[in-house]
């Protein structure tokens, strides 16, 4: 290949663009698949109460009337909330589990909390309660590292401790979790609930899963910036190629024609030249993106995802690959680039070699 410097720089930038795009596609798809797989067992319907448009605790007694709706297997008041740790400036999530709750005075904590508080099982840990007084808990268990993407900031405690800590009265819950047998009844049950209690908002499991589908969707702010930048880079590539060849390149084509090359031979050569750059960049970009997302913990995305969080889960995604996306990336990058290299060469190749060389 000629013009090593120019083509080398082009290859580098091209690889980088593919790397960024493929990393985003790999990361978002794997995360969405992971969310769908682990959240498939989330409660079928969550019933929230809102007052003047704001989220509000719900009376536990409402569970009885909702439990009588046909198709509802069980209603359980969910007790959860947030706790801001002003010492470590981190937000924790409190929750009372449905099964295997720790005994009163004990808690289970996520590995993210254990890491920033340097805590281990049987240690005593204190948090400031709703009344400003600290409550001490013994750590029963550190939740597994494997589940960090779900539990990194979680504090699991007993109902008694939760109510004492948060000050939530015994007849109130944060929301209600419903188990429903037949998925086709979700919408009907949700309608019945809003008719029974007009100030409630039922959230279906399908809506929870859809939330994660919309997460990192192409319409989300940052991704649209990345995709626009990549699109712009390709427009510049294409522009550079389509606006014609340098005098040197035109002369080269003229010489090739003068020594007997056919127009088709020249087009074939230019096609291969374009393919060499684009295919190499594509393969290298995809391989680097795979290594970035699945062999490490996506270090380039971590600062973006961390945002202002102090507590952030360290996770490595399972490599779910969407071949449709990879082939779309191929057809949106390699094919247009190769085509744009051929068109100006064809224009140069059909001119009389004598006038090109002059």
């Amino acid at each position, binding site marked *: *290949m000629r013009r090593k410097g120019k083509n080398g720089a082009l290859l580098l930038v091209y690889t980088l663009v593919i790397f960024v795009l493929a990393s985003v596609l790999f990361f978002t798809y794997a995360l969405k698949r*992971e969310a769908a*797989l682990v959240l498939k067992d989330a409660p079928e319907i969550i019933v929230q109460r809102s007052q003047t448009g704001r989220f509000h605790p719900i009376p536990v007694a409402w569970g009885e009337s909702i439990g009588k709706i046909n198709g509802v297997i069980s209603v359980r008041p969910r007790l959860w909330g947030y706790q801001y740790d002003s010492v470590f400036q981190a937000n924790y999530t409190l929750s009372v589990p449905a099964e295997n709750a720790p005994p009163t005075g004990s808690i289970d904590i996520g590995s993210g909390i254990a890491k920033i508080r340097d805590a281990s099982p049987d240690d005593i840990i204190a948090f400031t309660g709703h009344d400003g007084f600290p409550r001490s808990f013994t750590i029963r268990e550190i939740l597994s590292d494997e589940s960090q993407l779900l*539990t990194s900031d979680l504090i*699991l405690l007993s109902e008694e401790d939760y109510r004492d800590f948060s000050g939530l009265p015994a007849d109130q819950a944060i929301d209600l979790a419903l188990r429903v047998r037949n998925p086709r009844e979700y919408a009907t049950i949700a309608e019945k609930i809003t008719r029974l209690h007009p100030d409630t908002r039922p959230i279906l499991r399908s809506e929870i899963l859809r939330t994660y589908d919309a997460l990192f969707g192409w*319409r989300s702010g940052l991704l649209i910036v990345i995709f626009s930048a990549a699109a712009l880079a390709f427009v510049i590539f294409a522009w550079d190629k389509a606006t014609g060849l340098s005098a040197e390149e035109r002369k080269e084509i003229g010489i090739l024609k003068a020594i007997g090359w056919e127009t088709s031979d020249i087009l074939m050569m230019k096609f291969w030249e374009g393919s060499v750059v684009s295919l190499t960049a594509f393969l290298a970009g995809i391989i680097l993106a*795979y290594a970035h997302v*699945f062999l490490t913990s996506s270090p380039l995305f971590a600062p973006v995802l961390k945002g202002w969080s102090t507590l952030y889960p360290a996770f490595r995604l399972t490599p*779910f690959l969407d071949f449709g996306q990879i082939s779309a990336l191929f057809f949106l990058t390699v094919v247009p680039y190769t085509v744009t290299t051929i068109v100006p060469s064809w224009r140069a190749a059909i001119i009389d070699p004598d006038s090109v060389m002059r």
Partner: protein
Amino acid sequence: MGVTGLMKLRRSTIYLGMTSGLMLTLAGLLLHASGQRRAAEPGFARKAALVRQVELTDLCLFTEASYTRNPSMTDLSTPFQDSPLSLDHFPSGGLIGPPTHLTRNQRD
């Protein structure tokens, strides 16, 4: 093959060798991916059981603000929590797509 031998190789041969190498690496990564997915299955089952046990609704991705921790549970007016001009200022707001209820009917 020494350095002189490599110099004698045609450039097209070097390119084809390199491309074949890249393709083989990619094939290896695809095999790696399928192995990893198989190995992760019991882990997913354990995580799904944990979701059921704790009745979780969200992934722990953004802990910077309470309303970003559980995106599926936030109220309908979250981006304008305190007043219509109180624009979302947490970075994760730029990663989460528009809520589905804004783009389609809620339960269609």
